[in-house]
């Protein structure tokens, strides 16, 4: 019976996450179909357990089946406390998944994941990509196709005088900016992200980041722009800000190179968006 409940719990957890849409706060929806399938497969396993339990009562081992096949069930769940440990452990994610609020990755994780400015130095490797600031989807295309796409993106995004970084174009447009910063100089750009104070920043500078997700939250990385305000600001880490301004470049000493910087002329604090992450699309 307890097995039925646990299996049912897992199926319900997946169902719940899909229905509320919270699943997108855990994994890239590109892989959503896998967890969606789990609702049915685990659900089926649960129903199977229920039917079996009904037909056989609480008898653990069905004798005819035991005679038919090598019976090696329950090989380690033989004592009551081992069983208890198993069930408690397996129930744990169901409970915390259903009842604890979904947290959003924030600057704590940026720090833990090692926002290691100091080591980033691509002098020795011209092809090095700075995943941390600059999304590099060269990963997804053959190099010639990739270059063509980059150029197309660049043309597409730099054509207009105004570029808004939103959920859909966030990673690709940022990539175009990092690859062809010259083409975006003096363009108007708007970006939304959470505040992160990196090393060696002036009082009027900070980073605006969003987490980009490949597969699941465990492999998230941060992407964004350095922004520079006309005067010193005192925003705390993790404050969400929408800012717009014109793009230029500045030398950033921890990177030992120039990076794009957004000279902001208008900005305001905003609520954390409903979908705080940017997802990789192939």
């Amino acid at each position: 019976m307890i097995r039925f409940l646990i299996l049912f719990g897992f199926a319900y957890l997946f169902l719940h996450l899909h229905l509320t849409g919270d699943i997108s706060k855990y994994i890239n929806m590109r892989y959503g179909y896998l967890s969606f399938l789990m609702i049915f497969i685990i659900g089926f396993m649960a129903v199977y357990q229920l039917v079996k339990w009904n037909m056989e009562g609480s008898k653990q081992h069905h004798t005819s089946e035991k005679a038919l096949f090598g019976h090696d069930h329950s090989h380690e769940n033989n004592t009551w406390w081992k069983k208890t440990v198993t069930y408690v452990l397996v129930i744990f994610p169901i409970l915390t998944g259903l009842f604890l609020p979904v947290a959003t990755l924030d600057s704590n994780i940026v720090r833990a994941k090692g926002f290691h400015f100091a080591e980033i130095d691509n002098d020795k490797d011209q092809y090095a990509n700075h995943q941390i600031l600059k999304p590099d989807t060269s990963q997804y295309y053959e190099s010639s196709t990739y270059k063509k796409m980059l150029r197309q993106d660049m043309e597409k995004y730099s054509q207009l005088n105004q570029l808004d970084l939103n959920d859909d174009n966030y990673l690709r447009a940022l990539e175009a900016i990092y690859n062809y910063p010259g083409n975006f100089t003096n363009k108007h750009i708007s970006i939304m992200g959470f505040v992160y104070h990196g090393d060696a920043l002036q009082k009027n500078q900070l980073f605006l980041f969003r987490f980009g997700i490949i597969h699941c939250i465990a492999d998230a990385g941060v992407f964004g722009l350095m922004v520079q305000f006309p005067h010193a600001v005192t925003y705390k880490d993790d404050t969400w800000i929408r800012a717009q301004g014109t793009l230029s470049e500045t030398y950033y000493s921890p990177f030992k190179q120039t990076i794009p910087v957004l000279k902001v002329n208008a900005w305001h604090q905003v609520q954390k968006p409903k979908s705080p992450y940017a997802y990789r699309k192939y």
Partner: protein
Amino acid sequence: MFTDSFLQLNTIFISIIIEAVPFIIIGVFISAIIQMFVSEALLARIIPKNRFGSVVFGTCMGSLFPACECGIVPITERLVRKKVPLQAAIAFMLAGPIINPVVLFATYIAFGSSWQMVFYRAGLAFAVSIAVGLLVSYLFPEDQLRDYVDKKVSHYHHHEANQPARRITFFDRFKGTMDHAVDEFFSVGKYLVFGALIAAAMQTYIKQSVLLSFANTPVTAILIMMVLAFIMSLCSEADAFVASSFRSMFPPGPLTAFLVFGAMVDIKNLIMMLSTFKKKFVAALIGCIFVCVFVGALLISGGWL
């Protein structure tokens, strides 16, 4: 009541669970199907008798299975029970998560459509599986471990020799498969939960930047990347993308170490291996893998490969 960092830990934990459960389910069903439909006699017939042959065979079998490192442990345990030689099963377990089309394609894509890392990764994985398989076969006499695995199965009745009068219908087999899959889901599931919990805690509380600051010689860089791979416990399908983000910091040697070691040993599958094999055996196994990956990565770093 709960601190922010605990909630973030929980979020990472749940995300690892959600990511891994589909692969665990695939793993337990494959394992159950092997249990129900593949006989020991068949396996005994197709697996080469000699040591080297069986290790190579195990590695090649692993290449055919698109399983990731957590899904493969239950399959491996099943194979050992089905009297597959231990060294072949271990080679299978090590090669499976790395040498398969899905993972290699992800690696190819992640490294800017270059074959170099794919070549290093597959090559080193292949070499390590064979080397470790052979080492295991010399270090651990077959019977010793088999006793252990068999003993765990306290009432393992072996009835396949005397077939019962009633014919085994497809329905019986289906029922058997379901039973095995459910049982295995529980026995593997608890280790997944435990491993994912530790991995999530490590990701939340350990500062990778501190670790990385030690990585300034080839030797320490390789060691650090192996530790990192162990801690992060990424699925072998996703780890290439994370590894490629370290490209600006590390040459191919340490990256290959990350990609090979992480897919063979990490926190969640270590816990799962401990449930299947003797502690001493797991320790020796990880020691062998560690040394082999380290040496291989060093050779790549040194430009000898």
